[in-house]
């Protein structure tokens, strides 16, 4: 195996695999990437056994083909620190990988490519296409509400459902829930769904960061695969049943509080300085013409602020974990949002005034 490649090409490829490589792993080979050199193509693969990313780059020249595995972090660091515009020559020398550029000669340990665990992709997956920017938006608006190391393992990910041309993503940690819908560019027959693990969602988000092209997703019973022009990413799905989110969406008669997103967020930031560290509780006293936001803490400090409101219901006092509301507000791009209130002990529904396809449900604190 021997080839030369430009610094830009290989660094771009290596860095897109790094997110999958675990910092601490049980098997030494999982800290390596698999390098596979073919005539006009280098493929680089990383896996953590739950997910796998494979990306390709174009070599400047290939002297001989072959494959090996080398430590991902070291290889990436080395190539990244070489002078810009460098041509890098990489070849196998016994069981060492030699990296040479200019007067620099580096030799890195390898492990046999046969030992690298490969993902079995089941072929019965249903394939559809979606604009990268649309998928990125779906993820970025909802991923904050995923569970994190929750013992209900099915909450530690994003639920994805596609029916015809409608794609719905749902995340929840049981205290709040985010739901966003949009459309795919190619429809599927019937309905498919799955729960994508938290880490994989973060990786997919990164891979889509600059993609406005169409990407292909294929969803099976236990894996999901994302393909962009140069990279493919496969992840196992979380087994288990996602909670019935439709049941959680509050319904019935509600009163609507319309607020300026930025104004509310700024007031909450100030008032919450004096909320308790643990609960971050803030209270809203909502009246037809005015809302009083207040907080206090065990040190008996307190703060309050008022703002003019637009509210059509009965007076209400409701409390929230301020972080939950702030995270929602920070994901709302429109100037105004509507908070639908169903009672001080019932969940509320928050949505941007101009986007009916994005909804957030937040459970209040009981006082």
């Amino acid at each position, binding site marked *: 195996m021997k080839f030369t490649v430009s610094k830009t090409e290989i660094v771009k490829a290596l860095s897109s695999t790094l997110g999958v490589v675990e910092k601490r792993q049980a098997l030494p080979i999982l800290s390596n990437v698999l390098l596979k050199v073919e005539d006009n193509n280098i493929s680089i693969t990383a896996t953590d056994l739950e997910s796998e990313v494979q990306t390709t780059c174009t070599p400047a020249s290939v002297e001989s083909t072959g494959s090996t595995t080398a430590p991902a972090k070291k290889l990436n660091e080395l190539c990244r620190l070489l002078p810009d515009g460098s041509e890098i020559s990489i070849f196998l020398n016994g069981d060492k990988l030699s990296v040479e550029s200019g007067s620099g000669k580096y030799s890195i340990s390898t492990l046999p490519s046969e030992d690298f665990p490969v993902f079995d992709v089941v072929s019965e997956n249903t394939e559809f296409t979606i604009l990268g920017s649309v998928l990125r938006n779906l993820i970025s608006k909802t991923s904050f509400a995923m569970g994190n190391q929750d013992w209900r393992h099915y909450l530690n990910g994003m639920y994805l459902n596609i029916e015809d041309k409608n794609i719905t993503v749902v995340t929840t940690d049981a*205290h709040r829930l985010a739901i966003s819908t949009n459309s795919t560019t190619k429809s599927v027959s019937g309905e498919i769904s799955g729960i994508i693990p938290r880490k994989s969602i973060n990786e997919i988000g990164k891979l889509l960061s600059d993609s406005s092209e169409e990407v292909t997703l294929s969803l099976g019973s236990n894996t999901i695969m994302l393909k962009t022009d140069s990279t493919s990413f496969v992840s196992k799905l979380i087994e288990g049943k996602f909670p019935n989110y439709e049941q959680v969406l509050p319904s019935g008669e509600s009163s609507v509080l319309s607020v300026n997103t930025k104004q509310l967020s700024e007031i909450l930031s100030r008032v919450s300085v004096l909320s308790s560290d643990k609960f971050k509780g803030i209270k809203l006293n909502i009246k037809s013409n005015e809302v009083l936001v207040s907080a206090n803490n*065990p040190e008996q400090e307190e703060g309050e602020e008022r703002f003019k409101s637009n509210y059509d219901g009965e007076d209400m006092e409701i409390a929230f974990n301020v972080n939950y509301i702030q995270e929602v507000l920070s994901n709302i791009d429109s100037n105004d949002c509507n908070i639908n209130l169903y009672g001080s002990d019932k*969940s509320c529904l928050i949505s941007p005034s101009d986007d009916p396809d994005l909804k957030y449900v937040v*459970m209040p*604190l*009981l006082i």
Partner: protein
Amino acid sequence: MSIALVDCDSFYASCERVFRPDLKGRPIVVLSNNDGCVIARSSEAKAMGVKMGVPWFKIKDRYIRKGGIVFSSNFAFYGDMSRRVMNILNSISPKTEVYSIDEAFLDFSGTEKNIGCFDFGLHLKNTVGRWTGIPVRIGIGPTKTLAKIASYQIKKRDIQSRVLVLDSQRDISEALKSTPVGEIWGVGRRLNRKLSMAGIRNALQLSYAPPQDIRKRFSIVLERTVRELNGEKCLDIEDVSPTKKQIVVSRSFAKKITNLEVLNTVVNDYVVRAAEKLRSEKQKSSRISVFIRTNPFDTNESYRAIKSYSFTYPTDDSRDFLYAVRKILPKIYRPNYRYSKAGIMLSSFSDIGYVQNSLFNENHTYKMDSRLMQVIDELNLNQKQIYIASQNIGRFKPIQRNMISPRYTTRWGDLPTVK
């Protein structure tokens, strides 16, 4: 600005003497659960050379022969006596921090101008002595750490008035000089060794150390100590006690338990006890852990296990915790082992003020209504009257306390009679 530390002399031993004046001047020791080790000694027992924590069986024969008196621990009694002492302190000084079962810090600010710290201390000591029978010593200084040192000096110099005020620089320096570093509040064994190696052997030497250096080489905690030794008040009296992070109830058994049923009833006792504590602290917990183990010194058998159960909602209801124990205890129990200790821990606390409800409480919806538990707590306040059926209720006696004194102040039947 003055702070007083009220410290009960040999508290457990003093409690035992309150209703047994005949024991005055006799050596007294109190033993740990199952009569294992010595956990408290009267000054007479200390003078006999009885060490703290020594296993009872090692000293038993010699101690009894020499006329020593021994008691099993009677925590219900000590706890009640402590409450009485603390109530008196609270009624006399508005700002009191109960620091442990036998110590409290009091704010003496203002008394300097009126009757003077020494006289006020004397009054306090006499009042506690007359009303409860518990002898106390009172160390007074400009900071908590110096108050602690004053208290140590009373013990060390055997000051008859049992009150010492450290207010002049000369008195303070003298006291610091004769206080070894290991006796300073907050300096434990390891820190003591490290300080000795740095050539700091007494409190006066530590007080000379530049605080910034101490923070760099040791910790901010020790920096505070240094500043406090120099009369700079860093630690305030915490009259609002900080909320607990966890509640643990565990016991070693005198007679080993093999049977799951028996183990279950015993553990249920601990659960009910912990839940009572939780409610009295006005807290809720959303996690319970149960642990069991065999005797760790037994080389023939060794097994230990711990398992936790998380609730989707914070609770203070005994029934919820018992439900969890019913789920997890059978999972960690292995037959054919002789268990020597079991316990439970409640954690993941939230204040009663706020409860974050879940979106998906299909089975248990948390209600802000705990009237049943409230009624049970009220009925059981003075004497256990209502039990949960799965509790032990004295069916098994895993704890041995053969030499326990009567519960003079907490049980009607144990009231001392005067002939």
